[in-house]
């Protein structure tokens, strides 16, 4: 069985946060306690959408020490393959769902003298649990949170009310921008910076930190990619001795699972490296979307991350 351990839960609360974001609360079906976790962890939510089973990762935003319930926030993506639309439109209070044990690929560096959090949009969610962890342990932190506008600023009111000195909010439509160089230059020695948001923001923060001489180990980022739709393609799975079709709205990993192949995975977002698969033969072009493999590995045609990457061409044979 691939992936993390599973937990049977019931959806006990759904709260619309704003026009795009809904918050879901899960409690154990057997009435027991959920595992504690570390700030920045995610859970993989299993969605039975007709014939398709989707497994999408969402950051846990509740208090890591609260074992009574987990909460996640889901931003609706009208252009996506349907996972967030399923959560928004088809999940109701009382529904039974299956989620995974917490997995953390974005954990705090506990050596830090201070944690500097930089969030963009829905990228706020891992920081919500990290802030609760910091508050509980008495760690120093500061948040700089960029949102499109006040109406779409998820949890802005809660954050600024509870943490008026630590939480700083920037609205794009008011032309407010994080003064990143100043901010990074002003940090005490031993500060670690964490960024979660759109790809452009992550690139900007990493490049600026590097330019300013920040140690690589002190810069942390999380970017979960949702698998993107694409042209259907055919894959030969050599070990399983199967030829499968990958539909336009499913990922290669999902197509393998649908065909009964137990392929390894954890994050399903191109970050953790678990699903790395060797390419035996191909004639065509890879559409690599992960940030696990190095550029030369992408170019080599020897490896693919089936959770987010696709293929266009005639033949693809994988060692799975």
């Amino acid at each position, binding site marked *: 069985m691939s992936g*993390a*351990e599973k937990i049977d839960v019931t959806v006990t609360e759904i709260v619309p946060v704003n026009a795009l974001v809904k918050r879901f609360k899960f409690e154990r079906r057997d009435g027991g306690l959920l*595992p*504690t*976790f*570390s700030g920045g*962890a995610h859970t993989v939510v299993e969605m039975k959408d007709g014939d398709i089973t989707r497994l999408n990762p969402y950051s846990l935003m509740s208090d*890591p*020490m609260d074992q009574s319930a987990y909460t996640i926030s889901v931003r609706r993506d009208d252009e996506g393959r349907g996972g967030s639309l399923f959560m928004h439109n088809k999940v109701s209070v009382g529904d039974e769902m299956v989620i995974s*044990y*917490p*997995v*953390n690929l974005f*954990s705090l*560096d*506990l*050596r830090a003298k201070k944690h500097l959090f930089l969030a963009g949009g829905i990228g706020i969610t891992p920081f919500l649990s990290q802030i609760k*962890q910091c508050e*509980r*342990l008495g760690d120093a932190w500061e948040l700089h949170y960029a949102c499109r506008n006040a109406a779409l600023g998820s949890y802005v009111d809660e954050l600024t009310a509870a943490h008026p000195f630590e939480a700083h909010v920037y609205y794009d439509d008011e032309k407010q921008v994080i003064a990143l160089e100043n901010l990074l230059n002003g940090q005490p020695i031993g500060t670690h910076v964490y960024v979660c948001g759109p790809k452009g923001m992550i690139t900007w923060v990493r490049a600026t930190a590097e330019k300013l001489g920040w140690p690589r*180990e002190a810069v942390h980022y999380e970017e979960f990619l949702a698998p993107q739709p694409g042209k259907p393609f055919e894959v030969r799975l050599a070990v399983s001795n199967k030829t499968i079709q990958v539909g336009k709205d499913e990922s290669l990993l999902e197509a393998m699972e649908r065909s009964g192949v137990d392929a390894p995975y*954890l994050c399903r977002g191109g970050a*953790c*490296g*678990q699903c790395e698969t060797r390419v035996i033969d191909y004639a065509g072009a890879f559409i690599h979307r992960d940030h696990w493999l190095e550029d030369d590995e992408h170019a080599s045609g020897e490896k693919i991350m089936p959770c987010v990457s696709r293929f266009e061409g005639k033949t693809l044979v994988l060692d799975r």
Partner: protein
Amino acid sequence: MTIQFNDETFRGDYSFKNSDWAIQRFPFPFHEDSYMYSVNMEQHRGGPKGSIYEKRFDVDEHYLAEMRDRAMVLDDDPLRCQSLPHMTLAGWDLLELIMVSKSEDYPDLFELHRNGDQWRWINKPMGIDDSFTFLDAATLPYGPMEYITRQAQGDFAVLDQRDDNLWMDAGMITTQADWSLDFDIGMNFFEWHAPVPLAHEKGIFVRALKFLLNIQQGAPARRLNWTMTVNPLLDTSPENYHKWGVQKTEITPENIGSKQHLRVELQTFFRLPRSNALVFPIRCYLCNFQDLMSMPKWGRRLHRVIRDLPEELATYKGFIDNRPMMLDYLEKFDDGLPTSPGIWPEFETEPPLQK
């Protein structure tokens, strides 16, 4: 199950002894008639009833004697227990993991009562009944890791996970096979494994690290490792090599059966929830040759493994000089018959010694 705890020592007069029960459940580490390194991991989710795999943290007849020995080692050398400042949260994680596991797995021996942050821990064999506030180290007599590992058999390496590596940033190490926490503290996975021969070339550590980094909450793993120890010594540390190293020269054909011990480590790996650290409990089991030879399968197999072991490994494991004498002894218990696969002794079905 009630365990009869032995009154025994791992030093001085070496009165350590395995009961018949302890011999039967000894974790013989060879599943076939030869040995080479491998990433021999499996999930740690119970095992045959009564076996050392059954519980998350095995408690056996040596518990109280091992805890007395640990206290003596720490009295002499407090640096056997260290925790870098950022590892305190992992220490609480470990305390919780052991208290919850032991109270659930051995309810007749251990009790844990939790009311929010107010916890009460009862360890009946050791006569401990402490109330404390979870996450408030001032309410315990030691730091959380030291407190609980003074009450748990085996060594504990607590590894921080960051930058795609594991870091030896805390531990309680008093029953070790010749490695030093004080030397390794702060090292990463490749640094502290640097002295191991052959395995680097085989890519063992790259694969092992990848496996360990991906151990997740709720899915612990385990493996066995082994070496040889003369006399039932728990503390075979580099710090005390001047005391125990010389004992390797005291083996004779007459005393080898009782003095030479196979030392097996049950290594388990648990992801710690609050800190995202990894704890690596290393539980040491000792069994002398003559007790091992009471199982015909183990007699046949141990001879073959020791005979065919590459020289580098026998050197690294510290018994290259004594190997000829070991083989003279073990050879008498190998009649050339085939052995069944797997580590279990199969005493009922394996044929008795034919010579």
